[in-house]
Every structure is written in structure tokens, then in C-alpha cells.
């Protein structure tokens, strides 16, 4: 009985050693939370990583009152190395804490690097790591170094990486020239033989050196501002071309990622006379073989309202609206055709026509797959059918008329 009690006490104490969960504990004060990771390449051909580290004491405060000091909410640390893991570890010589990647939600890759080599080399360590989240968003630093995108302070969203991601997500929803591509999506597309990658660029204007100081956030008009750039088209994991404006929007249309935008319609010789506010759309892409040649049919269904008019039209007339719908359809079709033309010229199938063909004609696809981008995709014929609907015209029917005396 006594020995049993001693044994019990012994087990009791031994288990506290194991159950406390302190095997490889890391205190919060030993962690440097990385919000964004920027990757460049220097002259020696080594990777340079710029980490945006959250400075927790300075993130709160301001609006919430008390606590926060006046310092910047982030701090930057850089490291270089022949590989991503090496550059990450090498920062420990400059930093008093251990880098913690579980909250990294933005990866910025410099334009130069993306053009030079396939970005899949960069994505491998990030995908392999247990801390890193595969939902992190990828952007390309357009016309600047990745480090500059990471360094600039932003005013409304205190943490710049959040600002970049939110900007992308919101502009994707209401304007539709950019897309937010997650790391996992990017990898899925890179490995697929029937689809190529399209990633948004991010730009910075003004003086980056001023953007690094707190003054940047203390002005009504920041000296240096981060904003979404063009859409970068990739081929075999390398950036090959940027597309802008309506071509970019046509691409997003085809990817079925667009949810709302505004489309300008010409009317009786007047440019962009009417603004059509798209509220939802659905694009279906299907492929078939026509006499041995791939043929893609694209069906777009768009729904929206009239947002603005600069010509006096009678919107009470449904026949007029039907005519307008025809014009809108023409405009959407034009944008999509432009996007397809650019992609075909670039020989990179960012729309996944190849995947669509793979689904319908797996046998023939296997023969075409190795040469899809270079031989077959540029020759693909497309049939585009657009159905646009004007549902409502807002709070007013007819526009007001200026009484010209």
C-alpha cells in the first residue's frame, strides 16, 4: 500500500515534466512576427530577403487610445543568402528575436527576379515549411525592388502588408483589373500543363526614403504610396509581360474572378457616354475539338445597373435598354478578345483553355500537352457569347435636363 502511494507520487511528478508542453517553447517576447516577406536578388546573384516585422507596441494606440507609442508599427530586417532558408536564418545576426512566419500573409517578389528565373524555386521552401501559410498572397513588385514595397509605411491600415492585401482584394471585387493570388493557387497553376499564372503587380510612387518615416503617415497625402499595378502574365513560372486596363479586366473576366466593375459604353458617337455598373457575372469556358483543332467557347452572363449617363436618354423605354445591352455586350466582348489576343501573342495560356480541353478530350490532350503553349494555344479559335442585362437604372429614370435659355 505504501509503495503504491510512493509510486503514485512519483508518476505524478514525472508526468508534470512531460505534460507542461515546454519542450521547445518560445516565449512571445522571443518571436518576431513577420507580416510580409520581400524577395530580391542582388548583383552577386544571392537572394535578399526583406522582412516586415510587426512591432506590437506601436500597432495599437492612436484611435484606441493609450498604450501605443509614436514609433512605426513595423520594423524591417534584411538578410541575404543563396537560398530562402539561408537568408531567413542569417537575419538572426541582426535581430534579437526568432523570425515567426505563421502570420505572414504577403510575399513580394521583385520584377527582375520574376523575369529572370521561375518563381517556383522561391515557393518551394515556403510551401514546405510548417509555419508558413499557403493562403499567403503573392504580388510582384512592379518597376521597383521588392524591398521598397515592404518598407513603405501606410496610413489607414497601420500594417502595410494588410494594406496591400486588402487593396488587392477590394479592387478585385469592385474594379477588376487585379487579382489576389494565394501561394497555393499559384503553385497549382504552375504545375498544370494547361494553365499559366497571372499575378498582380504592386507599385510604389514618390520617395521611398520618405515613405519609411512616420511622417509618411502623418500627412494627408503621403509622400510615398503603395498601389496596385498591372496584371503580370507568366510563362513557365517566369514573368513575361504586363497588361493594363481593359485588357487586364478582360483577363479577369475570363478567369471568372470578376465580381463587379463599371463599363463605359459609347452612344451615338459620344465616347463613354453611359456607365454600366456590373453587379455580378458568370463566365463559362468550355473546349472541344473541331476537325482536330481545339475550339473554345466562352459564355459570359452579366447583370448590372445604369450608374451614370451623359446623354439624354429615355430609360423608361425597355427597347432602348435592350439596345444598350447590345452595346455593353460588344464592349465586354472587345475586352475579352483583347485579353485573348495578348495571351496568344505571349504564348501563355493564363485562362486555362488547356485544362478545359483536358476535361473534355483527355486522349487528344495528352498528345497536345507538351506543346500546348507554343503550338496549339496561339491558334485556338474562340467563340464568345456575351449576355448582358440591365436590371435597374438607379433612383431616377430619365436624366435631368439643363434648361438652356
Amino acid at each position, binding site marked *: 500500500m505504501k509503495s503504491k502511494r510512493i509510486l503514485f507520487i512519483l508518476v505524478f511528478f514525472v508526468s508534470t515534466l*512531460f505534460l507542461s508542453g515546454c*519542450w*521547445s517553447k518560445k516565449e512571445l517576447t522571443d518571436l518576431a512576427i513577420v507580416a510580409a516577406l520581400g524577395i530580391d536578388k542582388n548583383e552577386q546573384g544571392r537572394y535578399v530577403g526583406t522582412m516586415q516585422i510587426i512591432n506590437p507596441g506601436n500597432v495599437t494606440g492612436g484611435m484606441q487610445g493609450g498604450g501605443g507609442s509614436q514609433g512605426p508599427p513595423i520594423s524591417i530586417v534584411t538578410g541575404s543568402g543563396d537560398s530562402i532558408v539561408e537568408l531567413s536564418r542569417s537575419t538572426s545576426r541582426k535581430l534579437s528575436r526568432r523570425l515567426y512566419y505563421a502570420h505572414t500573409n504577403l510575399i513580394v517578389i521583385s520584377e527582375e527576379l520574376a523575369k529572370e528565373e521561375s518563381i517556383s524555386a522561391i515557393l518551394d521552401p515556403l510551401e514546405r515549411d*510548417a509555419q508558413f*501559410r*499557403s*493562403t499567403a498572397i503573392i504580388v510582384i513588385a512592379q518597376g521597383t525592388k521588392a524591398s521598397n514595397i515592404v518598407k513603405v509605411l501606410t496610413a489607414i491600415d497601420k500594417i502595410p502588408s494588410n494594406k496591400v492585401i486588402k487593396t488587392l482584394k477590394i479592387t478585385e471585387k469592385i474594379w477588376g483589373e487585379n487579382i489576389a493570388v494565394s501561394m*497555393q493557387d499559384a*503553385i*497549382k497553376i504552375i*504545375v*498544370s500543363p494547361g494553365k499559366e499564372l497571372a499575378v498582380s503587380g504592386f507599385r510604389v510612387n514618390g520617395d521611398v526614403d520618405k515613405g519609411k518615416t512616420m511622417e509618411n503617415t502623418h500627412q494627408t497625402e503621403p509622400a510615398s504610396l503603395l498601389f496596385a499595378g498591372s496584371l503580370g502574365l507568366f510563362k513557365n513560372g517566369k514573368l513575361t509581360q504586363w497588361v493594363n486596363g481593359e485588357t487586364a479586366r478582360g483577363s479577369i473576366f475570363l478567369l471568372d474572378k470578376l465580381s463587379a466593375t463599371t463599363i463605359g459604353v459609347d452612344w451615338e458617337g459620344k465616347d463613354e457616354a453611359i456607365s454600366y455598373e456590373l453587379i455580378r457575372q458568370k463566365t463559362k469556358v468550355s473546349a472541344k475539338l473541331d476537325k482536330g483543332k481545339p475550339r473554345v467557347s466562352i459564355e459570359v452572363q452579366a447583370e448590372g445597373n445604369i450608374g451614370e449617363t451623359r446623354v439624354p436618354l429615355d430609360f423608361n423605354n425597355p427597347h432602348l435598354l435592350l439596345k444598350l445591352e447590345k452595346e455593353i455586350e460588344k464592349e465586354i466582348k472587345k475586352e475579352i478578345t483583347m485579353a485573348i489576343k495578348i495571351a496568344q501573342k505571349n504564348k501563355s495560356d493564363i485562362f486555362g483553355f488547356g*485544362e478545359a480541353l*483536358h*476535361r*473534355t478530350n*483527355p486522349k487528344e490532350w495528352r498528345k497536345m500537352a507538351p506543346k500546348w503553349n507554343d503550338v496549339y494555344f496561339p491558334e485556338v479559335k474562340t467563340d464568345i457569347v456575351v449576355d448582358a442585362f440591365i436590371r435597374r437604372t438607379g433612383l431616377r429614370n430619365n436624366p435631368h435636363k439643363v434648361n438652356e435659355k
Partner: protein
Amino acid sequence: MEKSKISLYQLFVLILLFELGSAILVPLASDAKQDAWLAILFGLAGGLFLFWVHYRLFLYYPELVPPLYMQKLLGKIAGTIVAFCYIIFFMYSAARVLRDFGEMLLTFAYLETPLFIVNALLMLVIIYAVSKGIEVVARTGELFFVFIYFLAIVGFILILFSGLIDINNLKPVLENGIFPVVRVVFTQTLYFPFGEAIVFTMIFPYIKKRNKVKKVGLFAMMLSGINLAITMAINIGVLGVDLTDRSQFPLLSTIQGIQVAEFLERLDVFFMISTVICIFFKVSIYFYAAVASTAVIFKIKEPSKLTYPMGMVILFMSVTIASSYAEHLKEGLVFITRYIHPLFLILIPILLLGIAFLKNRKKESPQ
């Protein structure tokens, strides 16, 4: 342990948790590409047949556990040898599943913890549970079963609402014909996890209502097979074929993708809890089968005394069977399924059934 009584519901729960076990963890049938779910369902069909074989054997000897009827069917010496081989097979399988568990935790959460510690913590719990008897394990199963299903349903709804599933990833169906799928069935899914239900022959004699064993067992197998097929179809729908194949733990990657309403994300713990629970039961049942067989063969009166030494053997075996995770997987998916599983899960049971049929031909039919 001999006095245990298992209800039909407990049998159902045990079979289900056992089948989900480590199968839900790994990229099951990923060689069949987008048709993995088909390969799982075909494997299930084979598994149901094997279950029927075990059940017929049980009907011939409803009072006896397999080591005893093996001795009756094959003769004293040969029967003992075969039964002894089964003990080693059960222990090795338990060690493998335990290793799966440790590797999962080490790869994903406890990068710096030694494998031995992680395995030891689970094994100690398992030893304790099994030393209290199979009835205790079964009752624990009843509790956790509800919990697992709750997690699974919540996870499923969240994945659905995240809009992650792209049904196009599952197309084209049977791209390279039926042959690659059948190959996967006969090299993997038939044995792992469905053929492994052979351990339940050790539990059949303890069931209260024997006439319903077949119905409940087949139903549990079917439900688990369908669950696995759905899980794998979702994995492929979310991750695509390539990523599912390259993931060590595809379900984890799928769950990590969940982002609902800006705050429901990083639900990795769903995956962790459900696999830890399922693996606990899989190892426990294998371990129980090994202990009970040993007790029967060597006529040991208190089987619970065997649990500590045998548990230690399994623990050490789980650490030493392979030097790396890659080696562990290769061993399990190539060597074991090619040479060991067909022998232990298919040939011997069918042979035994054949002998039982011939020996009992003259007597009245078992029903």
C-alpha cells in the same frame, strides 16, 4: 479481458474509427490521380468480401478467438505458428500506425521534439486503456465517435462555404481507363485500410448479439469507406491532383485553406484532434488483438499483465522500423502491401475458410 461484452453499437463505432484511423491522414490511393475516390470505393467492395470471409469463419466457431480455431483447423503445431505470425503482424501494424502518428505531429507541429517522446506519450495512454480491457476502449470510442463526427461535419460545411472545392479537379473521370484504378485497388486500398478489419475477428466472440454482427460490421465498413472516398474527393477538389499527391497530409492542407468570414481560419486543430483520436483507436485495437492472441496461445491467465512489456516493444519498434519518414512510407506502401498484406489479409483467411468448409461439410450448416 475474457469477460468483456461489446454491444453492437460499440462494434460499429470501433470499426468506423479503426478504418478512418491512419487512412484519413495520408494521400490514400493518390496513384489513381483524380479517381482516388473510385479506387477507395472499389477497395471497399473487396474489403466487404474479406469481412464476409472473416464472418463465415466466426460462424463456424462462434465461441473461439482466431488463434484457437486456427489450432483446430491447421493442427496444434501449424496453427500455433500461424497464430504467432499474426501476433507479430498485429504488433508491427500497431507500431506502424503509431509511427504515422508521431511523424504527423513532428512534421507539422512539434518540429523539435524527439519522435520517441511523442510516441511514448500516446503509447502510455494506449497501454493503460488496453490493460483495462477492450470494453473500456469501446466505451471511450462511443464518446469520441460523436465528437469526431461533429468535427467532420463542421469542417465539411466550412470547406463548402469557403468555396474552395473546384469540381473540375475531379475531371476527367477514368482518364487512363479503368486499369490504373484497379491496380491501386490491388496494391493499396483493398488492404489498407479495408483488409485490416481482420483484427475484429479477435473481438467477434465478445459481442452480445451475434446474429447481427454481419449487418453492423458491413454497414460500418461501408460508412467508413464512403467517408474516406468523400474526404479524398474533397482533398482533390480543393488541392488538385498534383498538390494532393505531393502533400504528406492532404487533409491538413485542405483544412488550412479554410477562410470563412475573415475570422474562421487556421483550423488545423480540427485535423490534429480527429487524427489523434482515430489513431488512438487504431493502435489500441491492433494492440489489443496482439495481447489477446498472445494470452490465448501461451495460456496466460491475466492478459493485462502482458500490456506493459508488449506495449514497450511496440513503442521501441515504432521508432526503429525506419530511419526516415520516406523510408517508413516506402516500406508500408510497397513492401508490406505487396508481400505481407496479401498473405495475412487474404490468402490465410480464405485458406482457413476453405478448410473449415471441408471439415464441417458433414455437420449441419452453421446457421
